[in-house]
């Protein structure tokens, strides 16, 4: 969404900000209103990174807005600090530091818990400002006398006083804020933020430390809030205590949702609508206090019917008007595609040199998992050699899924040991294991549903190329070494090259299934586990997926669970049969087919019954 031509958005923003003072007065906007909109917009840039991009809805942003604002205002009014910009930056740093500490607590939980905790935290800050710290913050009087910025350029002094003069300063701050936010959103970290919003489970499974990234988003939002809070004091020549109120947080959330989340500019649009309606309804229509009710109703209606807010709605409209023909082209594509060239592997599977180690790739000994009294897996010994293709079968309740989950460290075994390439991985986290080169594709698709195919694979590939956590916030995605190759390679491998820029939601089921495998492949695993790769496929799709799996298998070690015996036996070299949580047998497909115990396990004693 935010790619297109380089610097297009930056340029448009700059033009908009330059033109605004000439246009807006004619629309009835006072300079002071415009300045307030920009402060809200700046506040919202960080919040949108947190909410719109990372999916964390915080109702406690006022804590950081107030913290930044009061630190800056205190420095400027009480501490005799003369440099306005310096004070703003110190305020921002203070807010970011606060954000880090608060984030450590709030991010212990997700979803509604996170929302509730942030609300509670913000309320604490409000009371602390009012009471224990009132000597520093002026309590309910706030801090009056915040100066406006001036810069001594040697030959002249530029002083931004008020109105459109101050606008220049605030607009510049906003512009820089936009540039930074855009860099972040387009960086690898930004890509991972969206992954967390769309599917935190899979983001973890492909090898990202999502807690670290969530904390990053939280701190970024706090930093933006802190700077904006400082600007509020400068703008009003007074730091108001109500910056800390729950209303502030609420207003930010509403403005963001009204304008459109996940767009960066949504909060600005929302603030414009908000402040315009406030003026318009109050003065022009004489509604008095009812303006907020009208805004509330507008907000509720937008949430009900226009989830993307105003910008999202406009984007939909634009797509509807301009993109209809384009889309029908894209839809015609898959039919022609599925029938063609699946057979030859487009590219050789990537060989990962791993010199030091020889011996079984994976070795599990005495693996046991109990749930209360229920034994799901009991004392399983299992080993897979380099380059092997292993199938796992077993009747319902044999414990196959539990076994896979233990191998990928999604769940910890009750007892037993798992050794991957000579290294004990028992008790590690799924993220770490993926980083070591072991991952799986899921039985039920776990995709990043809001993104395109290419973006999906990018996220998986990034984990392998950058490690589980790295703060390259200002790096361009395209400058990550090897990323493009790896994504293209995987696209070709799962035969989705022609669908690379299609959103996941528009894919056919079979394509989603291939992408599911692609996500695992893009992390370049040396051992790949496939949990029912053929589940839910039509017979024709099965045939093609088997071909696909064969081509992937070159140079890789894979373990596959599936119920489709014919397909599985065609694919694998050896099969392990599980029954009632134990290994029943290990052998070639032929041995398995002809083994009486296996037949017995599957047919549940029918022979005995018939004989009787």
């Amino acid at each position, binding site marked *: 969404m935010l790619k297109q031509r380089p610097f297009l958005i930056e340029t448009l923003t700059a033009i908009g900000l330059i033109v605004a003072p000439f246009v807006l007065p004619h629309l009835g906007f006072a300079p002071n209103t415009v300045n307030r909109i920009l402060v809200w917009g700046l506040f919202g840039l960080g919040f949108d990174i947190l909410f719109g991009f990372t999916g964390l809805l915080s109702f406690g942003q006022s804590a950081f807005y107030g913290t930044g604002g009061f630190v800056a205002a205190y420095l400027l009014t009480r501490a005799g600090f003369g440099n306005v910009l310096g004070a703003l930056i110190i305020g921002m740093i203070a807010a970011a530091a606060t954000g880090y500490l608060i984030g450590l607590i709030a991010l212990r939980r997700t979803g509604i818990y996170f929302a509730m905790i942030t609300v509670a935290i913000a309320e604490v800050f409000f009371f602390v400002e009012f009471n224990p710290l009132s000597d520093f913050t002026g309590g309910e009087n706030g801090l009056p006398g915040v100066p406006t910025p001036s810069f001594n350029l040697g030959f002249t002094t530029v002083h931004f006083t008020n109105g459109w003069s101050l606008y220049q300063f605030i607009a510049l701050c906003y512009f820089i804020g936009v540039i930074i936010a855009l860099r972040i959103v387009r960086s690898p970290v930004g890509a991972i933020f969206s992954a967390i919003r769309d599917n935190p489970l899979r983001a973890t499974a492909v090898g990202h430390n999502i807690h670290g990234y969530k904390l990053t988003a939280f701190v970024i939002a706090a930093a933006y809030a802190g700077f904006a809070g400082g600007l509020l004091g400068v703008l009003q020549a007074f730091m108001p205590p109500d910056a800390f109120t729950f209303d502030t947080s609420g207003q930010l959330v509403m403005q963001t949702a009204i304008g459109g989340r996940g767009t960066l500019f949504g909060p600005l649009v929302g603030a414009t609508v908000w402040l315009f309606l406030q003026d318009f309804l109050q003065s022009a229509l004489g509604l008095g206090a009812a303006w907020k009710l009208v805004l509330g109703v507008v907000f509720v209606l937008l949430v009900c019917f226009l989830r993307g807010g105003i910008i999202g709605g406009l984007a939909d409209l634009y797509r509807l008007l301009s993109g209809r023909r384009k889309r029908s082209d894209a839809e015609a594509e898959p039919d022609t595609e599925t029938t063609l060239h699946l057979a030859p592997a487009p590219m050789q599977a990537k060989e990962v040199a791993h010199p030091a180690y020889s011996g079984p790739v994976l070795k599990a000994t005495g693996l046991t998992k109990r749930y209360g009294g*229920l034994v799901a897996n009991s004392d399983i010994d299992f080993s897979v050699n380099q380059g092997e293709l292993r199938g796992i*079968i077993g*009747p*319902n*309740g044999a414990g196959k899924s539990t076994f896979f989950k233990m191998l990928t460290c999604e769940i910890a075994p009750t007892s037993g040991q798992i050794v991957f390439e000579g290294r004990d991985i028992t008790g590690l986290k799924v993220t770490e294991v993926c980083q070591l080169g072991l991952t799986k594709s899921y039985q*039920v*698709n776990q995709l990043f549903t809001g993104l395109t195919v290419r973006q999906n694979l990018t996220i998986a590939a990034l984990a392998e190329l950058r490690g589980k956590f790295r703060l390259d916030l200002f790096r361009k995605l395209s400058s990550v070494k090897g990323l493009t190759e790896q994504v293209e390679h995987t696209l070709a491998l799962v035969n989705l090259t022609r669908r690379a820029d299609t959103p996941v939601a528009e894919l*056919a*089921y079979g394509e*989603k299934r291939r992408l599911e495998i692609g996500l695992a492949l893009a992390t370049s695993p040396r051992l790949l586990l496939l949990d*029912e790769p053929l*589940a*839910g496929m*039509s*017979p024709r799709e099965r045939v093609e997926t088997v071909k696909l799996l064969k081509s992937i298998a070159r140079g890789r070690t894979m373990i596959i669970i599936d*119920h*489709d*015996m014919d397909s599985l036996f065609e694919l694998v070299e050896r099969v392990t049969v599980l029954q009632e949580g134990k290994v029943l047998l290990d052998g070639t497909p032929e041995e*398995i*087919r002809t*083994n009486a115990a*296996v*037949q017995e396990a*599957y*047919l*549940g*004693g*029918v*022979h*005995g*019954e*018939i004989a009787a």
Partner: protein
Amino acid sequence: MSLIEVNGLNSYYGDSHILFDVAMHVERHEVVALLGRNGAGKSTTLKSLMGVVTPRSGSVKFDGIDIAGRRSHRIAQAGMQLVHEERRIFGSLSVEENIVLAGFTAPKRWPLDRIYEMFPRLKERRNNRGTELSGGEQQMLAIARALVRDPKIVLLDEPFEGLAPVIVHDLVKACRELAAAGQTIVLVEQNLAATLALASRIYIINNGHIVHEGPAQELKAQPELLQRYLGV
């Protein structure tokens, strides 16, 4: 008129196509078994009948009325009950509460005594909470919860899975009694011996398609059929 008549039933999980044009019928007082491998679509078939999964197309005539697409409480009120594979006992409710709750909206109810006569174990444990039951007791409770509504048809999804042979034996006996009393049952089960002991007619489902229909006796005489669709 058949009690259940299914035609052209297609069901999905999300966008994963599970059932393909399934057609089947169940007569009154009949025990029908649905066989197939893991993931073949047996559970989905039962769930589609019960309305837990909403079929995307096709018709399900139950006692003469089309129930496809209805919410499951309506289907339950029409006289169908599904005993889920996972049993889905309410763990925080007592055994008796579980049973009583199930009977709330039933037009005609089994008296508790009749339930306890059938499953004496449940009577002993009537004040225990659902979480305190063993697997076998949970299964009995799940079945009891269905029976208390005096349903026209009971769908049993893997009722014997993971249970000790003694308990399976008891449950099979209970099901036989039910069948003898004229209860219509659709059974999904991996335990072939138990299935063939109960069912008079068999459907085999493979990859979401019904591939065989016939009397249970016939199946005993044709082991190659079993081998093909259920074996390895």
